[in-house]
């Protein structure tokens, strides 16, 4: 809306701002807020951005649209009083152990309490202490620090389309929790960490492996090697006062060397390898017309998402391991041998912009001779902490160079750090991989950009290849629906869970926003341009690796070391609830789903009725009757499992049918 608004007596031109908060920002006034994020829906709960209108009305800046002539005062005694009260009330219910908090120094609540000069909290201390959930390999959730701003709930729902977290209970009992009060590791969390990235306090933080890494570094038995992901190099500097997007790979290398890492390598090298493998795989699928579109598999959050929500399309996922895991596999399978050490004595550390990489590194399939291919994953935030702990003057460190044989990359390997990068790197190589010819074109700007979904059509050796590049799993979910419905048709789909790709990863420094992401992306493209070689296949180290160890792309050795398989994954884990007494000789197990869908259809009645029938027939000692959560067949509920057979579409009226199946099963024993 055009026109002029008055903010604190000064006219401000309106130019499509969505709300008063944005207009005030334009006028140079940063209204305090916990729950407003321009990329999420307006929630209006923290009441910090209240302003007073000319008519004396008090409204929230985030949820009030601007209009010409509107007069707004941002710092009146009334709004100041309310803001301070809101802060004091929040603090009263907040675990105020700031000195030992992960977010100390990075906490919005701490910052605003400081900004507003809150010097006392009159309403006491938090009176209950809830257990901390550290079940997840990626995140730690401490409800005692939650201020219920709902940022995590909305980012998971709106950006990732999952909704792992939601509110439960009312009034002062309200909490943010995964379904059924389960732990994060037991539910459908894909570990993307965006919840932690938006959390204003220490209620959701990245799970740290800093201590484990120090221990490894201090262990003389261990050879500790480290790989640095592309997006990390353009973000570390921010925390030391450098500009977002400044590439400080040399300084980071120097810092890591000083900490005692034995070898320092580049994940971009492994990304070049991924291009060879994934590109070859794609061209084969394209030629044979199978399993198209091919989905990229670099993003572990996306892989887990597909396993959980779209198992019928798992064969569309590229079988390539992600660059992190390709690196780990090469290191443990081949490089350790070259160094003449056992895989167990080599510690592979990754420095990643990503929290889901922590989960990926722990996947059981990525093991060599009993040792995890990647032992520890540090996020950018954690490596910053190690640099601080080491007392290094990061901005003034003299650049150091990476080690060989995994310390050289093409520009193609670097751009993996930004959305569209994987696609572009593959496109740069596709012509060569298909026809063995060099192509002059290096930049494929069609696939670059900041929109959540981009489409392109590129000629590859005479075939028009249709690509879709997506970030945010909600967007990916929509795309999957379109594909399934036949409304979309692509050959290659690149998916990254985080906004703008890995540069916007949840492991990156706290306070990431669209502007910072875009600066980091720019930094990636600058680094790409500075590289002598831009195309992955040109990387001489890649050639060497194939010659020495792997044979040819997609060959047998490459397949064993660099590829993987996927399987359907339950969204809700954890024990089912046994209703009978323990320790008896149960012959048949009967599980009735009491997950939301089945419960609403009456599964609890089924459960009760079965219990009655079993007791009536004196079979309760032979049958282990259980309430369980979710057989992943929600549409056809009520689901009941008798022994190994799943019966669907059961209604309370059909309990007799299940009872007959139970007696049949007992007779056959």
């Amino acid at each position, binding site marked *: 809306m055009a026109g002029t608004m008055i903010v604190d007596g000064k006219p401000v031109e309106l130019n499509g701002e969505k709300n008063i908060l944005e207009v005030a920002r334009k006028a140079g006034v940063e209204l305090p807020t916990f729950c407003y994020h321009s990329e999420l829906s307006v929630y*209006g709960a923290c*009441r910090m951005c209240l302003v007073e209108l000319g008519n004396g009305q008090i409204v929230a800046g985030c949820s*009030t649209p601007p209009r010409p002539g509107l007069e707004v005062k941002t710092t009146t005694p009334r709004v100041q*009083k309310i803001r301070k009260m809101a802060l004091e*009330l*929040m603090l009263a219910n907040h675990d105020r152990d700031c000195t030992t908090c992960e977010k100390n120094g990075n906490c919005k609540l701490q910052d605003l309490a400081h900004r507003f000069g809150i010097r006392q909290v009159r309403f*006491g201390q938090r009176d209950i202490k809830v257990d901390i959930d550290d079940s997840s390999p990626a995140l730690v959730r401490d409800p005692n620090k939650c201020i219920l701003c*709902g940022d995590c709930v909305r980012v998971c729902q709106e950006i990732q389309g999952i909704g792992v977290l939601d509110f439960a209970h*009312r009034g*002062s009992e309200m909490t943010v929790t995964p379904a059924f009060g389960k732990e994060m590791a037991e539910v459908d969390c894909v570990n993307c960490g965006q919840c932690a990235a938006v959390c204003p306090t220490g209620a959701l933080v990245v799970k740290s492996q800093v201590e484990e890494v120090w221990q490894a570094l201090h262990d003389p038995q261990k050879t500790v090697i480290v790989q640095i992901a592309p997006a990390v190099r353009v973000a570390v500097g921010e925390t030391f006062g450098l500009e977002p997007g400044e590439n400080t790979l040399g300084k980071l290398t120097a810092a890591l060397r000083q900490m005692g890492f034995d070898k320092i390598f580049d994940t971009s090298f492994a990304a070049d390898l991924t291009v060879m493998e994934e590109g070859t795989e794609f061209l084969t699928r394209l030629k044979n017309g199978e399993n198209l579109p091919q989905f990229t598999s670099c993003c572990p959050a996306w892989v887990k998402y597909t396993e959980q929500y779209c198992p019928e399309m798992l064969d569309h996922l590229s079988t390539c391991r992600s660059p992190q895991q390709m690196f780990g596999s090469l290191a443990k399978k081949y490089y350790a041998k070259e160094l003449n050490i056992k895989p167990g004595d080599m510690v592979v550390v990754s420095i990643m912009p990503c929290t889901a990489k922590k989960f990926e590194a722990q996947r059981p399939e990525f093991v060599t001779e009993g040792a995890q291919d990647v032992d520890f994953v540090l996020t950018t935030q954690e490596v910053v902490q190690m640099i601080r702990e080491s007392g290094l003057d990061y901005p003034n460190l003299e650049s150091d160079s990476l080690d060989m044989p995994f310390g050289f990359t093409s520009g193609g390997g670097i751009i993996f750090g930004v959305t569209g990068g994987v696609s572009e790197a593959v496109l740069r190589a596709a012509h060569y991989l298909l026809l063995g010819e060099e192509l002059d074109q290096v930049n494929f700007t069609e696939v670059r950009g900041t929109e959540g979904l981009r489409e392109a059509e590129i000629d590859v050796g005479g075939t028009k290849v249709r690509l879709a590049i997506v970030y945010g799993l909600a967007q990916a979910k929509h795309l999957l629906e379109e594909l399934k419905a036949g409304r979309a048709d692509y050959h290659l789909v690149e998916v990254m869970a985080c906004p703008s790709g890995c540069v916007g990863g949840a492991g990156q420094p706290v306070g990431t926003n669209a502007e910072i992401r875009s600066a980091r992306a720019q930094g990636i493209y600058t680094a790409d341009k500075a590289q002598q070689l831009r195309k992955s296949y040109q990387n001489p180290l890649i050639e060497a690796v194939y010659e020495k160890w792997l044979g040819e792309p997609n060959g047998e050795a490459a397949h064993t070391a660099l590829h993987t398989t996927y399987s359907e994954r339950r969204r809700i884990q954890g024990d089912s609830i046994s209703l009978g007494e323990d320790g008896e000789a149960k012959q048949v197990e009967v599980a009735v789903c009491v997950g939301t869908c089945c419960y609403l259809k009456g599964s609890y009645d089924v459960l009760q009725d079965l219990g009655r029938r079993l007791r009536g027939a004196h079979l309760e000692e032979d049958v282990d009757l259980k309430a369980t959560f979710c057989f992943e067949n929600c549409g056809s509920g009520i689901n009941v499992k008798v022994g190994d057979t799943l019966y669907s579409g059961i209604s309370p009226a059909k309990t007799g049918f299940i009872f007959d199946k139970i007696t049949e099963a007992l007779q056959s024993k």
Partner: protein
Amino acid sequence: MIKTAARLAAIRQEKQAALAKEKQRVLICAGTGCVANGSLKVYEELCKAVAEKGLSISVELESEENHSACSSEKNTAPGIAIKKSGCHGFCEKGPLVRIEPEGTLYVGVRPEDVADIATALAKKEVVERLLYRHPNTQETFALEEEIPFYRQQMRVALGNCGVIDPENIWEYIVKDGYAALAKALTEMSPEEVCNSVIESGLRGRGGGGFPTGRKWLLTRQAAGKQKYVICNGDEGDPGAFMDRSAMEGDPHRVIEGMIIAGYAIGADQGYVYMRAEYPLAVHRMQKALDDARGQGLLGEDILGSGFDFDITIMEGAGAFVCGEESALMASIEGKRGMPRPKPPFPAESGLWGCPTLINNVETFANIPPILIKGPAWFRGIGSSSSPGTKTFAITGEVANTGLIEVPMGKTLREIVFDIGGGIRNNGKFKAVQIGGPSGGCLTAEHLDLPLDFDSLRQVGAMIGSGGLVVMDEKTCIVEVARFFMNFTQNESCGKCVLCREGTRRMLGILQRIVDGEGALEDLDALQEIGEAVQEGSLCGLGKTAPNPVLTTMKYFREEYLAHVVEHRCPAGVCQGLKQYVIDPDKCKGCSKCARVCPVGAISGKVKEPFVIDPEKCIKCGACMEACRFGAVEEVA
């Protein structure tokens, strides 16, 4: 199926003629209150007794065609019809039995009274002992209309409540039911309907008092093809049951109001959002919807006008906050019932993002009479800024509790003393809590305040949905404030900081005060938090949650001070502030009290007066019960 407005009018006449065979009509209240008191048994017994005497008649209205050959019992001469009706309002005295056309009202009727009633009916006599007797004057009243409780009332929204069988659509149709709808569909454009409502001056009865017609017009004018009508029946205030009674007693009226609204704004779908805790209301509304649909008054091509409209009932899951319109809509959408910031208002973007008209039950119930009798008639009732009537649920320490409907602008004195019959047991009036947990407290100084939207707002209270709790001097005002704060704290959705944390801390402070542990600075904190919550909360629930505390602090500051400074509860209610003492003159020194005291707070020598150590005493009262000489006393 009734396919035209003309046919509806014709049928009405036919049914009216058929009903003329009923010489007398006995209406037994089957509202929730009377049912709980056993009115259904009274109904059964009376049916039997009257039938045995051969007096009964049952006019068959159900079938549309055989109206002329309406079946009746052989002996049609006396022709007494016995009906279950909706709430008569005088719940205090239920079960209620009303006899028409005379207008006799029997109160407190038990099944054992039925024989007498039947005999009296046969003899055209009145059972004197079942008539209402004024508690102070002992005067009895034969006619309902003469009873002080009813005398000053005026029934518009509840016009049919207690008069018709709510489960019979024909009884509604006979009472001009669906005539307003027929008029709207055949004689008026949607704009004209909106304008009529605007002209009537009707304001939203849910508490806000927003002009209804303007809301209709805004929703009509909002861009969007799909629009919705929602009836807010999520009445949750402690002690309020106006909406429940309207839906139980005259469901078709609410439905007719909604269909007219749908026509006026251009919607084809409506929702009634009701509390699941109102099973009878849900049942009657559902039956009414089915019957209306069965007669072509709901669904496709209503009365052959080409206008389609249907209504679905949504049952809430017991959250008070779902009475807030944006939370209510979230709940219908299957989401957690949490309010969202406004704007956008529902008229612009409501249910599923479509323009939505949301009105309260009572508001809809007012629509049909406005269209039939005209906006000027409606404007003539009540006060100029708040025309019409308002229903109130009057409870507490008042002699006559129940459901009333009065013209807006009646004074508190008229309601409490004339209609309500004054304070129970000749007690002294102390205050009234109006508008439930969102409302405020009014005191003796407000007794002559006319009750309407604007006058109440000026004194920091609100009409709310119309709950009226009357308190006498034995009520501790701090405890009342604590009670309401406990309610809002539990019912806060927890979304916004000020409401969630503010109400919790206010409750904590109030709890401390009634426990006898309050301090003077607690009052400042209450005031400070209360003002912040009032000004800064996201939704109406939060913005009004501090009202009971802030108004009682304003009008009864002395009582608060007594609690926090002198640690004394003037009303003698707060357990934590009570003290037990032994009167040395009465104490015989038997030591029984010392032996029953669970904490060893009583000491003394046998045959000499014992003493209670107030530091140790936990105020359990065991000593007082044990003492045979009445020597243990409770002091405030």
